[in-house]
């Protein structure tokens, strides 16, 4: 059969691969290449070696901390949102699998913000934050920490519902005889959580942890719409910092592309780490 199927490659593979080459392969390879060039468009470039990469950190002999600040700010943001989202989503999922009355209604409400995109969500919250802060003559971009907690609130509101759904799926998959056996053995609800629920849920916890991790590092829309990187460039997360370097200042496209390569390596390392952890867990189960 394989032989007959093989002849049909033009029908099954060609359309996807043509689009894949245009939409991914060529832009990726050319993007890596351009990170070593000075350029304004894709046709007009000059090889400059590693200059773009050094310019990320040192400009005209002076140390530029914008990128490092953004890296640190993003890391902090990612860790904080990862913890809040997972703890809250897990707690809600535990409660919503106890067969409460109205579970479906609650689940619907919690999940709803997730369907609304980052741009729309951010303007909803921008209105709310700024109208509340106006009473104290402040705005969401008064300091980088107002911006930080504003972003945390928006992202948590958006993602808790999504992670809750995944946790609910995981909890419902725990075999009920496992829980019954523990109950017969006299385990109280704390012990049940500590020794049965959480260990059996480890694969789900890993998935959600890494989903929130990569979502945090890649966050862009909410950052652009809610704070725009203000005040100064202090609330720029990495993705916005790259965007700003590339489109905000002429002549800096190369540096922006070099930052994008570093950003890619960072995200790729996190993803590979996740892959290693989850495949390890699967063989165990």
């Amino acid at each position, binding site marked *: 059969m394989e032989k*007959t199927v093989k002849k049909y490659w033009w029908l099954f593979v060609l359309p996807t691969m043509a689009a894949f080459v245009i939409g*991914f392969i060529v832009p990726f390879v050319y993007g890596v290449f351009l990170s070593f060039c000075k350029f304004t468009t894709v046709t007009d470039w000059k090889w400059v070696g590693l200059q773009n990469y050094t310019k990320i950190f040192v400009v005209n002999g002076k140390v530029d901390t914008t990128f490092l600040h953004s890296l640190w700010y993003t890391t902090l943001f990612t860790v904080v949102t990862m913890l809040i989202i997972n703890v809250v989503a897990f707690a809600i999922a535990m409660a*919503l699998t106890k067969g409460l009355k109205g579970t479906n209604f609650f689940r619907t409400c919690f999940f*709803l913000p997730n369907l609304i995109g980052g741009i729309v969500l951010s303007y909803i919250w921008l209105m709310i934050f700024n109208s509340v802060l106006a009473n104290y003559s402040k705005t969401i971009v008064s300091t980088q920490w107002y911006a930080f907690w504003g972003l945390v609130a928006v992202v948590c509101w958006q993602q808790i519902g999504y992670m809750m759904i995944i946790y609910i799926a995981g909890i419902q998959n725990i075999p009920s005889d496992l829980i019954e056996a523990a109950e017969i053995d006299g385990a109280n609800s704390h012990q049940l959580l500590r020794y049965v629920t959480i260990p059996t849920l480890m694969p789900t916890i890993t998935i959600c942890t890494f989903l929130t991790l990569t979502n945090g590092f890649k966050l862009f829309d909410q950052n652009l719409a809610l704070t725009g990187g203000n005040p100064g460039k202090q609330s720029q997360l990495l993705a916005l910092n790259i965007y700003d370097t590339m489109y905000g200042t002429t002549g800096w496209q190369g540096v922006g592309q070099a930052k994008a390569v570093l950003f890619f390596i960072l995200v790729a390392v996190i993803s590979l780490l996740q892959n290693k952890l989850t495949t390890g867990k699967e063989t165990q189960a």
Partner: protein
Amino acid sequence: MATKNQKEKNTKAENSVSTVRRARHGTPLTIFFTILSILWIYPIIVVVLNSFKRKAYIFRNPFGLSSVPLSDGFDKWQAGLSKAFVAWLNYQNAIKKTDMFRCFGYSVFITVVSVALIVLCCSMTAWYITRVHNKATTVIYLLCLFSMIVPFQMVMFTLSKFANMLHLSTPWGITIVYLGFGAGLAVFMFTGFVKSIPLEIEEAAMIDGCNPAQIFFEVDVPIMKPTIITVAILDSMWIWNDYLLPSLVLNVNKYRTIPIAIQYLKQSHGQIDWGAMMAALVLAIVPIVIFYAFAQKYIIEGVMAGAVKG
């Protein structure tokens, strides 16, 4: 149909917990969650209220319908009601400023066509690379895996420039860009499912005289329906809400999707007409809520299945 399934699920969930525990915590928890879930969607309710208010009062009393908060006394509050209420004025402004219905049309078109293309092309590719074993198919699979870990910022500059050069800056053209950039995840998810389809039924169809295209569309596609729904849901959520890719690839002076229209309500110097913004946000949210109401079951199942595989 849907309610029946939900009921079944409810009873399933109820059976898996001991009745004793439920009786002890049931009512307080229900009350707590009722309050919490209403608070959870309260920001959306606030936007709907404010969309009918004169823009000057949106920031003065954001959480109520009147121009002043209820704490100022009932009489003042009641007088403020008619002062603040502007009926559909904000909506008229929003529609005039953003051309919202056209943007809605573009959003629907781009999402539907892209998702259809992704589902059709990627399921075919996934089937082919699972059934044919050679170096080329292995490379394709690995490239798809690789593309999943590449953030959009890595390719945004080159991708948008190439798309412009190839005249893909139109609602038709961008669907090809979405197919290309979305292929990785879709091929990966379909491949995972195709591996579980037994070869015997395909061989039986082949003996009956089917060619590979017929085998795929008449034997495999019906079996793949759950994965097709999952991929379609996940990609719809992505493409409908995507801002950066269309804002770079599309010719934004001619074609705007809903997220682009909302972002462009903020003018270059940062001024926002908050009345029009509130109305535009409501117009952006309403279709999502309606869609969610009808497709809730599929969306939730799609997210669950997507997480397990992704």
